[in-house]
């Protein structure tokens, strides 16, 4: 395996150690665990805390998004494995004095089991914490079964918008309902172009032929609509956007925030060409665009591929989207 690492068992700890050293002006470890990343300058306890538990191997998410105006904490699991409910609860406990706490969980089985356990532990300890389940990947379940969908790159909109609004002191119930509203206005579809290598097994995570792409693959190689021969960006984008447009009724004048996320090896050159084609597709339906996000944020190691996420926005969402954040790896 050609990765620049030391001991395999130390990958996550070495990475987090480097991360905290490099960004000590903005983030720190919790007192009790080097798997819990906190803001150096915590939020006022009058405000609701926003945290997430998730597996690592997808950097910069989610550790890179801890910062003012974004996340209060990230509880970090091993590579591609959710952290335990116990550890997530430890993260929640840090905010027991806050005006509530929202645990974001991307809809993947291990994350959900451990997240639910953490929330139960919080209840037992009389800590005010709620779980907000995030899902957006239209390839993983049909219309009508939205809550069966996996969490994809479009969950970003929830992180950023709730992070910003909670910073302003909005109360937990309003945050939760806005979070759900954002989720319901978000659609994501991804495509895998080539597999990266798991740092644990040292093997490719999934297999694709040399001229093949996979529409709808999840962030760990989970299956979706199936394999296709590779074609031009324009054709691929049309196919993907048609599916998104089948799933959600956009109408003239809608103002959409696009997020083009690279999964690791796909170049920014390609992501910008893809964006150019997404923009043309939307223009043809007279849909307006607001402040797109284009880069690698939610990766699957050095896999090639990308996802398109669209948030059909209202003015509040747009203002929160562009509000400032000190997170080391979130940059509009």
């Amino acid at each position, binding site marked *: 395996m050609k990765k620049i690492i030391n001991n395999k068992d130390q990958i996550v700890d070495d990475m987090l150690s480097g991360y905290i050293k490099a960004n000590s002006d903005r983030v720190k470890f919790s007192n009790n665990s080097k798997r819990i990343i906190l803001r150096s300058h915590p939020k006022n306890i009058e405000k609701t805390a926003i945290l997430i538990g998730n*597996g690592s191997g997808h950097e910069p998410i989610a550790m890179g998004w801890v910062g003012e105006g974004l996340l209060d904490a990230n509880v970090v*699991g*091993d*590579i*591609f*494995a*959710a*952290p*335990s*409910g*116990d*550890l997530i609860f430890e993260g929640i406990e840090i905010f027991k004095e806050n005006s509530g706490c929202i645990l974001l969980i991307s809809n993947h*089985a*291990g994350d959900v*089991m*451990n997240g*639910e*356990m953490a929330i139960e532990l919080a209840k037992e300890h009389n800590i005010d914490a709620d779980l907000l389940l995030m899902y957006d990947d239209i390839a993983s379940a049909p219309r009508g079964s939205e809550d069966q969908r996996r969490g994809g790159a479009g969950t970003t909109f929830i992180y950023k918008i709730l992070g910003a609004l909670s910073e302003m002191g909005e109360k937990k119930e309003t945050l939760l309902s806005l979070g759900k509203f954002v989720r319901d206005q978000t659609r994501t579809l991804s495509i895998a172009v080539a597999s990266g290598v*798991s740092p*644990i*097994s040292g*093997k490719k*995570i999934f297999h694709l032929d040399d001229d093949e792409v996979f529409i709808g693959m*999840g962030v*760990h*190689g*989970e*299956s979706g609509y199936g394999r296709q021969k590779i074609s031009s960006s324009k054709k691929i984008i049309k196919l993907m956007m048609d599916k998104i447009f089948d799933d959600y009724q956009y109408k003239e004048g809608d103002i959409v925030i696009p997020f083009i996320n690279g999964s690791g090896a796909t170049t920014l050159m390609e992501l910008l060409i893809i964006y150019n084609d997404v923009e043309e597709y939307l223009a043809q339906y007279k849909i307006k665009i607001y402040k797109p996000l284009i880069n690698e944020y939610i990766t699957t190691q050095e896999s090639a591929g990308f996802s398109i996420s669209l948030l059909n926005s209202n003015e509040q969402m747009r203002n929160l989207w562009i509000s400032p954040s000190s997170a080391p790896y979130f940059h509009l």
Partner: protein
Amino acid sequence: MHSAYKKWILNSYDKINSDYVELDKLDQLVGDGDHGSTIYKGITVAKQLYLNKLTSPLDETMAIISKQMRIEMGGASGILMSIFFDESGKIDKSNLNSSIIDIFEKSIDKIMKIGKVKAGDKSILDIYIPVLNFLKKNSDFQFKKNEINEILSLSLAKTKEMEAQVGRAKFLENRGLGFIDPGAKSTEIILREYFESLL
């Protein structure tokens, strides 16, 4: 019971230690290639703790071990596979058969609830359930190791023909059909050592 349980944990550790690379390979075929490494982390911490906790009552020891396994392993398998270790602490020498049955029933209940899983979904449950059925059928006699071992082997083999409804294999194009389930395999190892040490 402490000495039987010590034997169980140490032998399970030895077995997993020699098999975990194989288990990773199996999980490469039907998952993300880490099940061996994950259960190895769990059983390693179980072994270390067991060697440190010999003075505590068995149920406390096993509760601590279960929690630490869950934390070390993380993911779906950590929360689900640690359940049996916790429940196993409630063994009762004077009521051996019924307490074992109780351990299995409680474990299965929790796994089903937390894992949103049922028999035939290609998971660790497809080992626990046939064992429980056997135990219940034979609750009035002394449990026979060789009979249980046969159940274990048979149940594991059956997972080969199942299509996964849970876990990562659920998302594979063939849902893992044709391969045994990695979690079932490690569960089979651990239960085999359990009865080997206990009976």
